[in-house]
């Protein structure tokens, strides 16, 4: 399943959904994350040590996280600020901590946390505005490695059809 998580005011992820409906025969789900109450990660470490795998923040994020653990691809559709993703999208990424464990191992030359689930989603970004594409690509790759997936790349919203080709 391809999961599209949209945090844009304009619901730009719906363009992706239309393209998928028209041109691809794949399973997908769309989440309008802006309509959900999703708070920032508080860094409590409970999802590692107190309630392993589960976040203790009582908001509307858990169903989103469940879908992420089942997805083959996760696409974030986001506004940009400071050349980077919006804080609304960053809050979602920060909240992915429960899908990795506190245990450690080496991936290449760097220490990483051991992932919790066998399913390892690949990760891509579709952005609106003045994003620093080089930096976003670099960041996307780093984040994908952390969840043991691959980066699907970073696309300006005008090029969303190119992103759909990867789905």
């Amino acid at each position: 399943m391809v999961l599209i998580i949209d945090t844009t005011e304009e619901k730009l992820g719906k363009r992706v959904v239309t393209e998928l409906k028209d041109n691809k025969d794949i399973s997908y789900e769309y989440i309008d994350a802006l309509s959900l109450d999703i708070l920032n990660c508080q860094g409590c470490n409970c999802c590692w040590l107190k309630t392993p795998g589960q976040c203790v923040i009582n908001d509307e994020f858990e169903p989103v996280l469940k879908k992420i653990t089942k997805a083959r691809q996760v696409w974030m559709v986001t506004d940009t600020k400071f050349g980077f993703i919006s804080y609304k999208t960053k809050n979602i990424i920060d909240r992915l901590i429960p899908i990795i464990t506190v245990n450690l191992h080496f991936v290449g030359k760097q220490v990483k946390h051991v992932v919790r689930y066998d399913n390892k989603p690949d990760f891509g970004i579709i952005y609106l505005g003045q994003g620093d594409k080089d930096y976003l690509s670099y960041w996307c790759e780093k984040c994908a490695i952390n969840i043991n997936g691959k980066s699907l790349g970073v696309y300006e919203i005008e090029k969303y059809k190119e992103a759909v080709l990867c789905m």
Partner: protein
Amino acid sequence: MHVMIVNGSPRVENLSNTEKIIDAFVTGLSECDATYERYAISKRSSWKKIKEAYMKNTEIIFALPLYAENIPGIMLEFLETLPAKDSNTRLSFILQGGFGEASQLDCGLRFLRNLPKYLGVSYGGTLVKGDNFGIRVVKEEIIKFIIPYVEQGRAFVRENGFKSKRIKKFAGPKYYALPVRIIYQFIFMTYAKKRFAKLAKEWGSSVPIDYKPWE
């Protein structure tokens, strides 16, 4: 020198590793006759006061933990609320993380180097150091983790900012050497695993560390 220091961590101050690092850093500032004022963004009710101080001060340091290869979402949200300033204001950073290798902080560092230009202010450098996960969980050794920041506070005054040669040395090795990685891998698979499991029990967990709630 008068320095405004903002803790950019989402954790409440009494549980914040970054707060303890700031404690040590300002000790160094004081020893060199600098003055400081401290803030933390974890409580949104304090944001108005922090913004006013940001507009008033010209020597500002944000101290923060690395979250998902960059600054925490709450800090990004706070920064989006800041009005533009000019290059008379110098913005510096203390970036800290849990992993020991300096390369783990590269992605966050690259963002912080460019951030001041988006805010219209000048960049004063970033003090980078990892290996700080233990501040919270290995309480008996907390001094070992934070003491080095006292000297960095002194150096900030003495050298008028974070100078590249010093901060490079402070960050430690980019990667561990192969023999060190082999030893660590063995520790991760044995002692560290047991230690984390024990810690989880102390925190009240009744399931294994690698429990999969949705499988």
